[in-house]
């Protein structure tokens, strides 16, 4: 495979960096070259956090460019709109959106409207060839009492739907490498739950 471009977006604190590391480790396990780009610092506090993961035979740039993403994972619905920059019909981008909402302060205070999920999906369609929505956070909260492992669920879901060209085994290996040892079993269970 020449290259695969993944963009993960969400709100600071949603485990975006963990998700990107899981995919990166899985790609390394399958012998690919891999680069990721992360945002640390100020914007982490409830800000918009974009993270890029690229793998393939030889990767130079850590950044996915405009319209080049194969898959865009959105851990928050509104952020799917912002991520449209990376999607295009030309490159057959797929969007995988968790229907979880974190209303930004601009919505709560200045009364800008948080668009409906239907509206967001219809806009996102203009920048992609496939849009999948899943209420991952809800499922994970129901299962574990918190939304912390939503990122693992999303990886499991993407793997089951064959959205990421990496083996299930490698992704689980990635999880093993990235999450603290004592949480591996529960993460594995959430991963499997998403694949069911």
């Amino acid at each position, binding site marked *: 495979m020449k290259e695969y471009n993944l963009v993960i977006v969400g709100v600071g604190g949603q485990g975006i960096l963990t998700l990107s590391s899981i995919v990166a480790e899985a790609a390394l396990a399958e012998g690919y070259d891999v680069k990721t*780009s992360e*945002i640390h610092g100020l914007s982490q506090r409830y800000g918009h956090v974009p993270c890029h993961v690229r793998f393939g035979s030889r990767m130079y740039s850590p950044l996915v460019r405009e319209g080049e993403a194969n898959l865009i994972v959105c851990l928050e619905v509104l952020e799917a709109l912002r991520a449209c920059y990376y999607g295009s019909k030309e490159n057959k981008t797929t969007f995988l959106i968790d229907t979880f909402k974190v209303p930004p302060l601009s919505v709560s205070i200045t009364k800008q409207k948080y668009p409906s999920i239907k509206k967001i999906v219809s806009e996102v369609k203009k920048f992609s060839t496939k849009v999948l929505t899943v209420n991952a956070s809800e499922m994970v909260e129901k299962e574990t009492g918190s*939304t912390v492992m939503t990122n693992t669920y999303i990886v499991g879901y993407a793997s089951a739907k064959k959205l990421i060209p990496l083996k299930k085994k490698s992704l689980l290996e990635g999880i093993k490498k990235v999450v603290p040892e004592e949480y591996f079993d529960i993460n594995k269970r959430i991963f499997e739950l998403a694949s069911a």
Partner: protein
Amino acid sequence: MPKEILSNDVGKRIILLGNEAIVRGALESGVQFASTYPGTPASEIGDTFAGIAKEGGIYFEYSTNEKVASEAAAGAALSGIKSIVSFKQYGLNVASDSVMPLAYIGTNAGMVIAVADDPSCWSSGQSEQDSRYYARLAHLPMLEPSDPQECKDFVKIAFELSEKFMLPVFVRLTTRVSHTRGIVKLGKIIKSEKKGKFVKDFEKYFNLPPRIIERHEELLDKIERVGEFSEKTGINYVVNKNSKTKFGIVVSGVSFNYVMEAFDELKLKIPVLKLGLTYPLPEKMIKNFIKRFKSVLVVEELEPILEEKIHALAKEANPKLKIFGRELLPKAGEYTIETILTAISKITGKKPNINFKAHLEKYKKLKIPERQPLFCPGCPHRATFYATKVAAGKDTIFGGDIGCYLLGIYPPFETQDFVFDMGASEGLVHGIKKVSNQKVIAFIGDSTFFHAGIPGLINIVYNKSNPLVIVMDNRTTAMTGHQPHPGTGVTGMGEKAKEIAIEDVAKACGVEDVKVVDPFNLNEMVETIREFLQKDKVSVIVAKRECHLLATRRKRKEGVKIPVFEIDQEKCKKCGICLYRFACPAIVEENGKFKIDKSICWGCGVCAQMCPAKAIHGVKE
């Protein structure tokens, strides 16, 4: 931090963050001393050292500021111990005071200064400073890695170069290098048990005139010799050497990757001079490279340092050469593959597979509500700022400083009327006070207070002005990732140390009215601010309450239950103060009703104190 960073499995390929690879490079060079003051995008260098120092058998410290960190690293290097110091771009401004004379004196062991710039200001505000100028200002060599593997390799080369010429050597990073993960092939870690010794040497350390003039000449001579090294080193090299095009590219730093991607996309093979050692430049190599072309594109983020140099070199080597740079690439902000593709496409006439302009037009049509960063639920800073707004008049000037609390710049607080640099809140409000009759409050963080706040406070006392200084003491260096500082009683080695109380320091500086107030006690905070604003001398409030992220982590570990609050819909008068003036992400408005999202409420209870209808209360289990 990856578990394998200390692995001695030579040849193994592991994924490291650029900043982690800097640490690995230092370990493979036999470093024994590391120091820093945290600052993103460089923070993870120090944090990685903190994570491995004990096991790795080296010494690491979070110094009180970057100047002290550099001096400590210099002290180690003068005593014959290899050292590394790291900080962000503004950190180098602070450290420059000690770096300049150190360049003249030189070291007695390898010393590397890792500095991380932040084009596009992803992790910082203030300015897009280009630290490459410092290499020229100090006459110290500078290396610029473009990815994590090079981060590791270049630190090793920097140590070798440093030992060879006994000069500190800069390794300059940018956000997209520091915060890129990539595959790094491990080398051997060199552990050293060497004990340092400072040897008196009048000849070496005497730095007064007229000797210092000779020393300047010696330094310039050294740099000339490093220039010869620059011509031969493998980290300055040409890609696509045999391509016969009349157009070439000169590039340094992360942009090299974008250039290579652009070739892939445009199916081009153009010669590229990739520069890894960018000061002193390999002038002969550059002249040799540019002489065969009709045009070259110079690709470097921020200031046109290479471009100007190439203009000068071309006068001799190829006077007719057309040099593209600034005119085709952005003057401010980081480069992206899009900007590079567009520039190369303009010169070569080849088109990328997507029309960026049309795509961008389409994207810009989307209506996306902004998402600005926010104080976390339970953040003590939010409570302090709320109290300030209640207590201080509309005309009060709020001096801002560097830390999480600078988020007070946004509505609804707007309690950072200006934000300059570390410690500047005090210096500036003093000046304002001296020339105006305005009421002023300086906000400064705990770590910032130790970093640069003490001289400012003494200046206020000694030169007699009467601002109120509020130290936002959240018991950690929060913004950069919760590093300890002298007020926390823990060192970078994870050892206990004397906890230095900010209130004691303030008193020792001569401030008479000093009070420690818990920000979660809203009434006391409001009353104290009101009272202190009337003082005719400087006064200090230490707003002391642990960062909620740390507190929560600790409480979870200890198994302490975190209380959760809710809004009684029958009592709620829907005034909206809790949402519009307090702006807690846990409070949401749904169909005209105000609710608390229990999944993110951290139970600070401040909203319950401010609610005029007394409608907010703890949830009884």
